[in-house]
């Protein structure tokens, strides 16, 4: 099979088939059968029929190392291998469909509730068995060919094409969002989107061409532009400030452009950006794996409620909490952050001696304790127990009302996020950040080098707790009422996923992580049922394909890139000295100077 071993093709084809069966069993096909992306024929459901073939075809045509040589698969071989892989996927998929029909969908439905006549009809294109199965197999083969093509075609062709397809997919999925935003901006989007549906054929073509053209343009000149911008900003602080101001200006006018639906989602994203930034200090900077971060979120939310005079929900109506104040939100929030820092110390103190797995387990337990307390009868007089609290108000400021207007909430959240990001950034580049990094790299050696690990672990928990509690305070304002259901372990997991997906230790990474994990599902409400499936899939994919995260800690990556350049420059400056030394040395002595990378 050209450059691809038969075994690999069979294996990839079978895995593709199993993936397709999985998609069918969890009900994605029936759910998205009619969600049109482009025109009337290209629906998300149909795309999902070809998707396993595409992925299998893409995976099977990867360059291989054989006989100590890295072999790239040629386009011809790639397309053939892709087609055969797609055929394998199609056969497995079709066989399963046929089996389901023979066995009886009703019997399968007893276990897999999504399997029904409708699914069979969808997978056979209403042509019945076996006629429809031929179409199914042909589509899978098509998918395999596309996958093989996407890997093995020349870069000039495959990259713009891939970017174009992905753009069309994104615009198709955002069909409820983009038209609204366009209309609010005053554009008529009739030619781009069909009313209440996906892109028009014309719209899809335009999006594809525009994205492909943008990719080509970027490869021609974009890189140089980026490098120039980077250089200027590094050399001139004024330019950096200017860039920063432009960025802030964009962030400020964003909700006006995007309308309230997206603003609301962005507000939710920013709550998780705050959680991510706080957790990033604990996990990313100090290297302490905290699985109970929800504790700070809950503490921030409930304390905000108590300090701003919220009521307890009771069966007979409202009641005053046992302990409460009636402060303005903007006064209360600082007290909340301070108290949360104290809670950070309390949580940090018992786990000071623990490392790695043990620390993770204990923090998991501590988080769980907080979750249980919020729902307990014991804490009912204070925070309402299972019934929770309501009436978190007093967040009006300068005529803005963050509670009722998502666009106003966006500004409040933005202010908090900018503050937290600023604090994180300044800390990470300071003596404190260095101490955290040293501690993360080697705790014992850091201690022996003069860093009080006790003090800096506690500081990490306190700072992380304070920032996380701001997320809780924002959350309290955004929904106005608090119930224990909002403070379960899922919050800890999501916050950690945000940090890991974005890139541990990276502030832009946290933002991107939150946008992907909170923003996309928020905008794509259709996927709500499959949120966890998508989280899991995204995390597994990231861990395999890009373990350092989407936006890794930039500084270190750049240092590695620039190392070679700097080395050359240094050699020039030192003049003839380096070669002269080398000449004097006996051959063996140079061995000690070898750059032995770990």
């Amino acid at each position: 099979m050209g450059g691809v071993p038969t075994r690999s093709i069979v294996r990839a084809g079978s895995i593709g088939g199993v993936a397709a069966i999985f998609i069918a069993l969890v009900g994605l096909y029936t759910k998205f059968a009619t969600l049109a992306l482009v025109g009337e024929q290209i629906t998300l459901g149909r795309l999902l029929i070809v998707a396993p073939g595409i992925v299998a075809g893409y995976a099977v045509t990867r360059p291989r190392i054989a006989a100590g040589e890295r072999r790239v698969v040629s386009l011809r071989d790639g397309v053939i291998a892709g087609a055969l892989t797609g055929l394998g996927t199609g056969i497995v998929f079709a066989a399963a469909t046929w089996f389901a029909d023979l066995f009886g969908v009703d019997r399968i439905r007893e276990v897999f509730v999504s399997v029904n006549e409708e699914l069979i009809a969808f997978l056979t294109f209403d042509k019945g068995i076996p006629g429809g199965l031929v179409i199914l197999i042909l589509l899978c083969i098509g998918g395999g060919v596309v996958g093989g093509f996407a890997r093995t075609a020349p870069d000039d062709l495959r990259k713009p094409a891939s970017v174009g397809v992905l753009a069309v997919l994104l615009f198709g999925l955002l069909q409820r969002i983009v038209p609204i935003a366009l209309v609010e901006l005053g554009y008529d989007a009739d030619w781009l989107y069909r009313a209440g549906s996906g892109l028009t054929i014309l719209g899809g073509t335009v999006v594809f061409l525009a994205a492909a053209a943008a990719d080509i343009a970027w490869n021609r000149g974009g890189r140089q532009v980026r490098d120039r911008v980077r250089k200027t900003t590094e050399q001139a602080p004024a330019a950096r400030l200017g860039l920063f101001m432009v960025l802030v200006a964009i962030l400020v006018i964003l909700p006006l452009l995007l309308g309230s639906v997206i603003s609301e989602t962005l507000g939710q994203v920013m709550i998780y950006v705050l959680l991510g930034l706080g957790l990033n200090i604990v996990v990313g900077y100090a290297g302490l794996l905290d699985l109970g971060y929800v504790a700070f979120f809950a503490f921030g939310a409930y304390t905000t409620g108590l300090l701003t005079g919220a009521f307890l929900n009771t069966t007979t109506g409202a009641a005053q909490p046992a302990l409460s104040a009636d402060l303005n939100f903007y006064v209360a929030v600082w007290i909340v952050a301070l108290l949360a820092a104290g809670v950070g110390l309390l949580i940090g103190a018992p786990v000071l001696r623990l490392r790695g797995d043990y620390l993770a387990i204990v923090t998991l337990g501590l988080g769980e304790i907080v979750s249980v307390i919020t729902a307990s009868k014991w804490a009912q007089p204070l925070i309402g127990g299972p019934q929770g609290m309501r009436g978190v108000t007093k967040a009006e400021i300068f005529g803005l009302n963050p509670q009722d207007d998502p666009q106003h909430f966006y500004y409040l959240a933005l202010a908090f996020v900018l503050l937290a990001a600023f604090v994180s950034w300044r800390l990470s580049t300071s003596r404190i950040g260095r101490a955290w990094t040293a501690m993360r790299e080697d705790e014992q050696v850091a201690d022996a080098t003069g860093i009080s690990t006790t003090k800096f672990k506690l500081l990490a928990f306190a700072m992380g707790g304070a920032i996380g509690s701001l997320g809780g305070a924002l959350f309290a304002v955004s929904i106005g009422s608090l119930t224990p259901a909002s403070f379960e372990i899922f919050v800890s997991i999501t916050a950690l996923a945000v940090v890991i997906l974005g890139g541990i230790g990276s502030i832009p990474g946290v933002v991107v992580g939150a946008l992907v994990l909170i923003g996309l599902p928020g905008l794509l409400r259709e996927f709500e049922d499959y949120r966890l499936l998508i989280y899991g899939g995204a995390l597994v994919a990231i861990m395999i394909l890009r373990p350092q995260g989407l936006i890794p800690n930039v500084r270190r990556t750049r240092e590695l890139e620039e190392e070679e350049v700097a080395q050359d420059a240094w050699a020039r400056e030192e003049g003839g000295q380096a070669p002269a030394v080398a000449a004097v040395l006996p051959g063996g002595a140079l061995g000690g100077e070898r750059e032995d990378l770990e």
Partner: protein
Amino acid sequence: MSEAGHLLELDGVAKHFGGLYALSGLSLHVDVGEIVSVIGPNGAGKSTMFNVVTGLYQPDDGTIRFRGDGIVGLAPNRITKLGIARTFQTVHLFPNMTILENAMVGQHCRTRSGVLGSVLRLPGTRREEERIRERAGKALAFFGTRLAGYREEQPAFALSYANRRRLEMARALATDPAIVMLDEPTAGMNPRETLELRDHIVRMRDELGLTLLVIEHDMRVVKGVSDRVIALDYGRKIAEGSYDEVANDPQVIEAYLGTKAVG
């Protein structure tokens, strides 16, 4: 006992791991401005002694005094702050931090900027950061151009083995110590690098005014630098004196070569 004013003094220090006595009643002292070498076969307790002095292990018995004050029970970072710096037998750097940052961490215990100063970059913090940078740069410059120049911004893991050892020493120097304890500083170095390091050890005392306690296996280095040599075996001091005295001590020869190897 310490009225004589020893800089560092161990008295009857014992440390055992289960049934194994790594140190049993070890007593020794180091005076200001001395270079003292510690030798002994593998497992003699040399590194354990370092770990006990620097607080990584707690001794089971005995006292350790630094400038007359007991330091047993203090956390390692407190001991470093008092003025005892060390390197490790197997190099322990912060591999993903840059070379300059590694040295800057050394200055940590001499500085005090807190959260507020760091976030607001108050003038005091900025000045302190400059001082840290300058002091760290100086510590790196002690080893000539090997750690200076473009290399300062390289991650530590990119360094050659010998340079990692040098960086570890620079980090120790950056803690502004009174005594530096080097655990086999020439291990894994080639002959030329070993000779260079021998000069560095002497320069640490002559130029930086430091006291040094060195565990070393390379007898040329021991001979070249030591004011005094202490030989350990089975966690006890078996000989002490000038290099020649110790090298010719029958007990030392026996410890290294085994019984009845003499003559």
